[in-house]
């Protein structure tokens, strides 16, 4: 599903000419197979989010190659990325990233709007998805009128609405209490089992890492297969 080859990334900070280079990732190679749940762990500041942002296309790597679902995404334009995301990737964020001025319903149907799906079809699909995450009664609530757990379920519904084969999640349980966390994790397992959705999850959390088929640790900008408990 995801193949990362010899990926390298660094940030430049400061004014032009006097900038300092912060190397973050070096020679990163990673393969995530279809149907896997892979957790990426590592110390704070180790570059986990950076890796995910590169795979999401939010930043472009300094070097290396990324393939997603058979497509070489390195060097794609913003427009190509937009279309690619709509077809292939669902996103779950730590802070939900719902649009506050839109209702739960409107937030969930947003990817379909971008895709140009007709309103009637959108209605049906959005209803199905909201029912699936158990929030149909809350369809007219704005994000500010929902609990953290409910907001995260809205964002999951939004990620699932286009039926992507892959979901990328950066600390999806970071803003949830333990009860909501458990519910989310079992939902992830269910989606993985029933719909064969591939998950790449970044986390700090032992419990999250425990549901993964595979754990990958980032340390010193390099990937190490398996978990090194001292690092976490």
């Amino acid at each position, binding site marked *: 599903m995801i193949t990362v080859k010899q990926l390298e990334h660094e940030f430049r900070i400061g004014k032009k000419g006097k900038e300092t280079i912060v190397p973050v990732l070096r020679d990163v190679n990673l393969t995530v197979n279809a149907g896997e749940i892979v957790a990426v762990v590592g110390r704070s500041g180790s570059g986990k989010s950076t890796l995910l942002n590169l795979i999401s296309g939010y930043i472009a790597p300094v070097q290396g190659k990324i393939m997603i679902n058979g497509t070489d995404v390195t060097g794609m334009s913003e427009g190509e990325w*937009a279309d690619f995301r709509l077809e292939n990737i669902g996103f779950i964020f730590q802070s939900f990233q719902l649009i506050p001025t839109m209702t739960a319903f409107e937030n969930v149907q947003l990817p379909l709007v*971008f*895709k140009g799906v007709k309103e009637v079809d959108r209605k049906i699909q959005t209803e199905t998805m909201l029912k699936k995450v158990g929030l149909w009664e809350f369809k007219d609530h704005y994000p500010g009128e929902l609990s953290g757990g409910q907001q995260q379920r809205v964002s999951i519904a939004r990620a699932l609405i286009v039926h992507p084969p892959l979901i990328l999640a950066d600390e999806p349980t970071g803003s949830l209490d333990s009860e909501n966390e458990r519910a989310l994790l079992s939902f992830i397992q269910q989606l993985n089992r029933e719909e064969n959705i591939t998950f790449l999850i970044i986390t700090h959390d032992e419990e999250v890492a425990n549901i993964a088929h595979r754990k990958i640790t980032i340390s010193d900008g390099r990937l190490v297969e398996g978990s090194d408990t001292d690092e976490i």
Partner: protein
Amino acid sequence: MRFKDRLAFVLSNMKKNRMRVFMTVLASTMGCAFLIVLASVGFGVQKTAVEDITGGRLLTQIDTFTTSEEKPFIKKDIDMMKEIDHVKAVTSRQRIQNEGNVSLDGYSKDLFEVFVPDFKDEQKAGLELSKGRFPQAANEVVVGYHYGENLSKVQKNKKEITYKASLYHKTLTLTIKQKEGKKTKKKTIALKVVGVGEKPPKRVQEGQELFLTKDVLQTIEAFTKTPKGMSKSDIDPKHPQPYNTYDDVKVYADDAENVESIEKELKKKEYVASSRLDSLKEINFVFLFIKIGLIVVGTVAVLIASIGIFNTMTMAVTERTQDIGIMKAIGAHPRSIKQIFLLESVIIGGLGAVLGTIISYLFSFAANALLPVIISTFFQTKVPDDFYFSYIPLSLPLISFAICFGVTLLSGMRPARRATKIDVLRALRRDV
């Protein structure tokens, strides 16, 4: 993304900022209205001045005469004039000169302004009909727009009334008279009105004509045995009048610019030629500057309004940076985002342009209707009839609409482009 959805986005966005949108629309409305009203004053005063000078005649029209009455225009003259460079058309009319009359349902009128034109030349010169068509059969005629006003009858109470109904498709009776010794012979010809001329501009003594076909002229001449139906008593037997002479000859240039050279050419050929061009040229030149000045000032107003649109759109983009970041993060195309913001500025600018145009029309009507009243009440001066304080030719709202629309589109362009350049990660971190 569908247009309908983009529109829905824009509308909900505008609804959330009603006050700001309203103020921006107001500013662009005022800018656009200001531009049109200002320019319309220039156009109005110019129109008044031009109509005073030309009496409504075309600028390209050159009235042509021969140097003496003994030497009337003949066909050769007309053909020669048609050969001059830049001549669009030459109209040549023969005037019926007979003591007879035209009558309809008891109303009648003497044979004043009865012409036999060449309809093809008249059409080329720009004669247009408000109704009907040009004659096809011998007894069909075209009348001027105001022809009916001179058809009159005296009622029993000795009051004179004129014919009010439309003459279209009515049959006029033309009576031709000729003296034979002491007796007067009469001949009547039925004429069907198949066309009515265009309404001539105000305060012009036109639209009184009756246009006959050449066939009717032949009938008349065969009856009177004189050219154009002239009375035998008017003809000095020693100087017999020739047939086929033309009384009213006008040359039309293809463009006002060429009037001068044609005039020169006509004079070289020993005709008398006159147009209103010289005096008009001067006045139009002055008005050109006035109008350009007014439009420039008006455009400044539109530019000021466009700063408002620029600000509004920049704020709209800034305010929604996070939303835009989220949208981009989950797969919104930068093109769609740009179009959403462009659409918003186009709607604001378009609303302003439409409202501004409507308001300036209202203003223009009000100024023309009310200013004369106000001036005569408070300043004891009478405004001449048909004085245009403000005149909006069709081109003016089109130009202003284009200016308003173009300026708003341009001012919305940068904010819209900025929206597409928003960095997803920064927006998601909410540190913008």
